[in-house]
């Protein structure tokens, strides 16, 4: 068993090194500062409990994202646990300016991205917002690197298709894809 001081030191190292990226990950995927603060706190509470499971080195951060991801999933299911200890953080995060509706409406990339299935949005955002490699994403999602590559590939293709469809309408090209038609 780790001596208590050792545990605390390890936690503090992880906390210091990953506070901003993990909080960023959470803020980008929650609706408001309050939710973000709760999810963030619970993520690191989990890290504290599972300290010995946290991989050392480069895998630590994607592993933490993976924990945050599960906490988020629970949170979205309604398991909300507002705690007093996150009040200060929540109030600080209230200052974040989130993109307004009018910006979203004007932008075809925003729209195309918003219309992607959740799992496609997830891999694309992990790659482009968190800047993770396929190998790191596989740690976050707990699946194989190949699965991530395939999903990234599909997501990118779907996005490209949505963008090209949004530009010049090509009814003839689309007509061959009939729903449920085994072609």
């Amino acid at each position: 068993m780790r001596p208590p001081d050792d545990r605390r030191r390890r936690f503090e190292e992880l906390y210091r090194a990953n506070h901003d990226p993990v909080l960023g990950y959470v803020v980008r995927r929650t609706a408001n500062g309050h939710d973000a603060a709760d999810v963030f706190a619970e993520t690191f509470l989990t890290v504290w409990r599972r300290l010995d499971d946290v991989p050392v080195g480069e895998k630590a951060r994607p592993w933490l994202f993976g924990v945050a991801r599960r906490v988020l999933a629970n949170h979205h299911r309604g398991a909300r646990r507002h705690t007093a200890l996150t009040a200060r953080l929540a109030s600080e995060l209230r200052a974040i300016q989130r993109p307004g509706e009018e910006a979203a409406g004007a932008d075809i990339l925003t729209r195309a991205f918003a219309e992607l299935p959740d799992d496609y949005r997830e891999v694309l955002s992990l790659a482009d917002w968190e800047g993770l490699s396929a190998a790191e994403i596989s740690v976050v999602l707990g699946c194989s690197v190949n699965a991530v590559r395939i999903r990234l590939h599909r997501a990118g293709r779907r996005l490209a298709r949505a963008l090209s469809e949004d530009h010049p309408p090509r009814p003839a090209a689309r007509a061959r894809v009939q729903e449920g038609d085994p072609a």
Partner: protein
Amino acid sequence: MTRITVGRLNPVTDDEIARLVSTQSRDELAEHITGTVPEPEPRSRRRRRLIVGIPLVGAVTAAAVVAFSSGWAGPQPAEAAALSFQREGGYLVVRVQDPEADPERYREEFRQRGLNINLKLAPTSPDKAGQVLFMEDGDDPAGRIEAVEGSCGEHACSVAVKVPENYRSYASIVFGRAAEQGEMYATGPGDEPGEGIGLPGIDDYTVTEAVAILRARGVAVEYRYQYRGSDQPYPHGIPADKVDPDWYVHEGLVGSENQAILFVGPEPND
């Protein structure tokens, strides 16, 4: 193909967040967290896992609670071990205690006994679970390593490795284990769709075409359904008799040494 980046859609950067959060707030939260006393370590992690059941993908809460219980309290070394070691008739018999353990833990436990052995469990189709998928060992005057096949699932695994006493050479062994629900099978060396099964560009094939080539090579085929990014209504694979030969192949992955998993569906690739 260069993928379109969605980087500029990032609603808020880490730097922006870092500027908002005060040192006081950071420290206070860390202080609160490390001030909490973790729950007592449950004595039987495995039993609890079985109660929870298999759906790791869906039952996030339950899986989290259970899996999270493993680390902190520093259970006794024997309890935490990923492998067990037992001397039997001139061999050291090494059994897998925790099929979910990081291979690095196996490696470390081998290392602690002076052994340079890489053991890995790779997700496979059920019929390859517990079998040796790959084995490589060096010449050693002490003898050769033997792999003992058995059954192997997510929670329990009966495979073992018999290491001659005084064995000092290197070995690398990969056993198959039953894939978790929704988990991809271990893939081959290729990263491009279809490359791992020797059919790069597989998304140009129909089911009939792909299967004809694979059959000619003696490769068994298993199907997964894919339609517009969804695997519904066949989340666990589609039976061969429900697959239309004229459907399109989207991907091909290596299931095991001699098996291919084809992702198929009614819609052509674009």
